[in-house]
């Protein structure tokens, strides 16, 4: 979230799109009802289903799954055409005046530079600004230049007329305009809308671009950096934010640092590429300090073994020959027999990943599989024959499976990062069952034994294993406190202020924040973003002062929020260029007091940079401003464009009806085996989407008796009109099939799903909750991901769970 849960109460308008917070995040959703009750806020919900969130909405609009870019693109066009934008914000704080290179173009659904064979844009060099002789981007503050971002944006979305959008989305025109008009009202300076989204935006082949479109909308309205504004990913698991921050992803290192590619053999060039100089005069470009973050990380991991002479252990980091080895890529390799070993730590891939048949076949080709989990998972028993729910031949599966019991949250100390970016410490309350151990103890146990083997036997490239710093009090089980102090970081020598020579910290003391990090090896920090969470003043994550002196919900004394205990990102943008809040009454966040920046939140800015210095609020971008034009950072192009889901019920892209190559995302990666098992609308006519229920959390809660009682049996939701056409009554058993398999469940017939008129034809939706499987105390059911397609977003490769095609029959 750019903002945070309690801040929702400051909103004047709440848009929930691509999420169902009332069902999936009930205790966070109370801040929406708080905004409605005490801030006269209105709630808008756009969703294929009339959800629990929709039932509380002031206006609800149905939309066909997978078409949100069309909806948002149409809204962007409407705001530009009717000139309902936050002018001063847009002109000063965004890239609208920036001039784009001459060769950038868009035609027939493609940006310039497309290569159909590789399904990608290998050369994106024209997707960038025109630079002047000083290396600064050229701008036109009048926004008249034909190639300035404002004009290009206007041109790009000129095709997204209300009629076109309504035809793609199936949203009735009148209802759509009603929603758009409500949203346009927040273009007034000081009036804010917040956007709450979740996996309903993420899990599409164009998911990243949907979220970008939402961010662009918020920039147009001047809602980023504002209290009650922002683009807020509600997120899923309790520490999904923390593990992302800590970089546990194929291509990342902690703190959103990135692993090198094969061709980045030169250390200095690797750092320089990630540490951009400012693209406009006087801008901060905070990533220019990348080297400090990286060297401090390597010191935390490798201690004295890394020095300037060995480039801080640069060769010990693995280098990528592919953009990433994400789970779809990796399970495709497994399916092809190229993987021998796999670890699942608190993760149940056969239930969680698309196309269960392919995932199961991949697991069966492993030599060894190691499960670390507090609970029995389907993945740990993928080899077991369980009726029709897991129809496998056990004896033929030659994978050795180890299953290691772990503690759960209640049985250990530590911290979790919620979607508000709050690091909250928790305390152990009881003992684990049997011989269960913590994940830390298991990782420690494995690492120890490996290091001992490399010491006694030698082996392939032992250097990073032998040199990993492991100076913990109990090497077999490092304490959570020690680890937390390590990711915060410490001074390795007496640290002096480079300007005054004043002693800041003695060697061994905890760093106070990331501004103290150095790139000369004198500081360590395992995750620069978390620097400040455990200082000489103690564990900041354990703070429990819930006072809220400004009644803005910021609670700066509760836990600790990255970065630097800041609660709202980009909050400099909540004040106008002269440093005054856009709204001095109830949206006061930060302001210039004549000598420094101060406010009700920690300023996200250089605190002594006066407004006259003209430093802009988006300090992480070298431009200093927010981007409508993504430059070369997105796989599909600098502006979001609507493409159909890979399995589309209308078989064409109404924006480009005669170009089959751009029906679906032309830059999404599709594996050889998977293209063949996409279904088509003639055989699988219904648009399907998957989701969670409030009584359940993915596949865990079927091990919890009370939850199994509350939702005892697998069901699917069908619209009343569709069910009537098929002769299906509520309570009938139905078979739902895709081109990859089928599930059977009880039919819930409901008016919450209604037929939509799309591109001249009727489209019905089928709603499929997740939750059931073949282990647990709940009644067995089919894994929903038997049905879903093995294709992901063009940038993140997050699978398209939310839009695919099925057929439905009565059993």
């Amino acid at each position, binding site marked *: 979230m750019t903002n945070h849960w309690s801040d929702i109460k400051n909103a004047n308008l709440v848009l929930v799109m691509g999420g169902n917070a009332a069902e999936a995040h009930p205790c966070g959703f109370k801040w929406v009802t708080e905004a409605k009750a005490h801030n006269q806020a209105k709630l808008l919900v756009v969703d294929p289903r009339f959800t629990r969130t929709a039932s509380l909405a002031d206006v609800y609009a149905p939309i066909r799954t997978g078409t949100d870019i069309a909806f948002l693109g149409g809204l962007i066009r409407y705001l530009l055409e009717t000139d309902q934008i936050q002018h001063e914000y847009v002109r000063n704080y965004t890239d609208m005046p920036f001039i784009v290179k001459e060769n950038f173009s868009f035609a027939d659904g493609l940006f310039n530079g497309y290569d159909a064979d590789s399904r990608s844009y290998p050369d994106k060099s024209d997707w960038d600004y025109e630079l002047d002789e000083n290396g600064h981007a050229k701008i036109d503050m009048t926004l008249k230049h034909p190639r300035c971002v404002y004009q290009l944006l206007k041109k790009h979305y000129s095709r997204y007329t209300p009629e076109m959008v309504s035809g793609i989305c199936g949203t009735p025109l009148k209802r759509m305009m009603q929603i758009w008009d409500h949203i346009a009202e927040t273009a007034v300076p000081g009036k804010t809308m917040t956007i709450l989204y979740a996996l309903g935006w993420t899990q599409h082949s164009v998911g990243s671009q949907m979220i970008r479109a939402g961010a662009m909308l918020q920039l147009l309205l001047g809602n980023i950096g504002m209290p009650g504004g922002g683009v807020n990913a509600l997120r*899923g698991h309790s520490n999904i934010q923390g593990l992302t921050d800590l970089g546990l992803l194929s291509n990342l290192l902690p703190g959103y640092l990135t692993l090198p590619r094969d061709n980045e053999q030169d250390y200095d060039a690797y750092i320089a590429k990630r540490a951009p100089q400012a693209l406009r005069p006087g801008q901060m470009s905070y990533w220019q300090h990348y080297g400090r973050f990286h060297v401090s990380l390597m010191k935390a991991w490798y201690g004295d073994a890394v020095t300037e002479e060995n480039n801080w252990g640069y060769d010990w980091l693995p280098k990528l020959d592919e953009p990433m080895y994400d789970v779809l890529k990796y399970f495709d390799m497994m399916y092809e027999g190229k993987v021998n070993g796999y670890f699942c*730590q608190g993760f149940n891939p056969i239930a969680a990943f698309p196309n269960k048949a392919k995932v199961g076949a991949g697991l069966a080709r492993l030599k060894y599989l190691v499960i670390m989990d*507090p609970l029995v998972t389907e993945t740990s028993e993928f080899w077991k024959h369980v009726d029709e729910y897991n129809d496998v031949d056990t004896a033929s599966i030659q994978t050795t499976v180890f299953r290691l019991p772990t503690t759960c949250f209640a049985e250990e100390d530590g911290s979790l990062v919620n979607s508000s970016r709050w690091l*909250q410490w928790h305390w152990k309350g009881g003992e684990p069952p049997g011989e269960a151990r913590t994940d830390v103890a298991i990782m420690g146990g494995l690492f120890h034994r490996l290091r001992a083997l490399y010491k006694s036997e030698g082996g392939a490239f032992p250097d990073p294993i032998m040199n990993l710093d492991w100076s913990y009090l109990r090497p077999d089980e490092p304490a959570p406190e020690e680890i937390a102090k*390590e990711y915060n970081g410490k001074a390795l020598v007496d640290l002096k202020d480079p300007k005054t020579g004043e002693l800041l910290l003695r060697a061994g003391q905890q760093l106070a924040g990331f501004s103290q990090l150095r790139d000369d090896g004198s500081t360590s920090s395992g995750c620069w973003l978390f620097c400040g969470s455990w200082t000489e003043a103690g564990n900041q994550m354990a703070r429990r002062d819930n006072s809220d002196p400004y009644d803005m919900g910021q*609670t700066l004394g509760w836990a600790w929020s990255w970065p630097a205990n800041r609660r709202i990102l980009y909050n400099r943008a909540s004040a106008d260029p002269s440093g005054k809040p856009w709204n001095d009454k109830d949206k006061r966040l930060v302001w210039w007091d004549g000598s420094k920046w101060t406010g009700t939140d920690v300023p996200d800015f250089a605190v002594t940079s006066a407004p006259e210095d003209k430093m802009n609020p988006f300090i992480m971008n070298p431009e200093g401003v927010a981007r409508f034009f993504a430059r070369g950072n997105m796989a599909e192009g600098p502006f979001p464009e609507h493409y159909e889901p890979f399995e589309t019920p209308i078989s064409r892209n109404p924006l480009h009806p005669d170009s089959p190559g751009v029906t679906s995302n032309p830059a999404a990666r599709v594996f050889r085996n998977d293209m063949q098992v996409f279904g088509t609308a003639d055989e699988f006519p219904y648009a399907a989407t998957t989701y969670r229920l409030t009584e359940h959390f993915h596949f865990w809660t079927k091990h919890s008796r009370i939850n199994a009682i509350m939702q005892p049996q697998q069901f699917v939701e069908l619209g009343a009109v569709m069910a009537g056409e098929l002769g299906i009554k509520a309570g009938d058993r139905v078979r739902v099939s895709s081109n990859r398999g089928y599930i059977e469940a009880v039919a819930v017939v409901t008016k919450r799903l209604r037929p939509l008129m799309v591109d001249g034809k009727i489209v019905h939706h089928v709603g499929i909750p997740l939750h059931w499987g073949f282990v647990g105390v709940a009644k067995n059911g089919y894994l929903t991901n038997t049905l879903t397609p093995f294709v992901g977003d063009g940038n993140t490769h997050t699978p398209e769970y939310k839009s695919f095609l099925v057929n439905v029959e009565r059993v």
Partner: protein
Amino acid sequence: MDINRREFFKFCGVGIAASSLAALGMAPEPAFAESARHFKLANTKESRNTCPYCSVGCGLIMYSRGSGGKNVSQEIFHIEGDADHPVNRGTLCPKGAGLIDFIRSPNRLQYPQVREAGSNEWKRLSWDDALTRITRLMKDDRDANFIEKNDAGQTVNRWLTTGFLAASAASSEAGYMTHKVVRSLGILGFDNQARV
């Protein structure tokens, strides 16, 4: 006396029950008073925790029995929302409210186990045997398939034939240690739930 808010309620709860009975003119027989159920959270240890389900991060209070002594294991028997928490303010959803059934689930794993190739059953084994066998498999695979240089002669130091999925319901401390170990081995097939 130094008591916190919750302890204050505990004290008061007993007092109010007694005084309101008296006010109704029902001075109870001693035997009746003794048969009244004690307040179930009296004499318990409270631990602050965070709900492990979704990422709202609701505050929890876990109540456990046990003397609190070093050699006594605490048993959690009740979990409720933390009223001091600025986001959930004491509330929990149907998932959080059922957490006691999660930590006490009959499907909690107790011991290390192995399912041998082709077998149809689990066998219990010791931690030491489990970790020793796993590290042997890891090392053999790494030594056989580690790539120090690619075809162009560039230093790449990666291990692609073993992969790792990390848990985004685990603590940040577990996540950090997992990352530290996994990258030192050269693993690139590495993701957490944020990928899906």
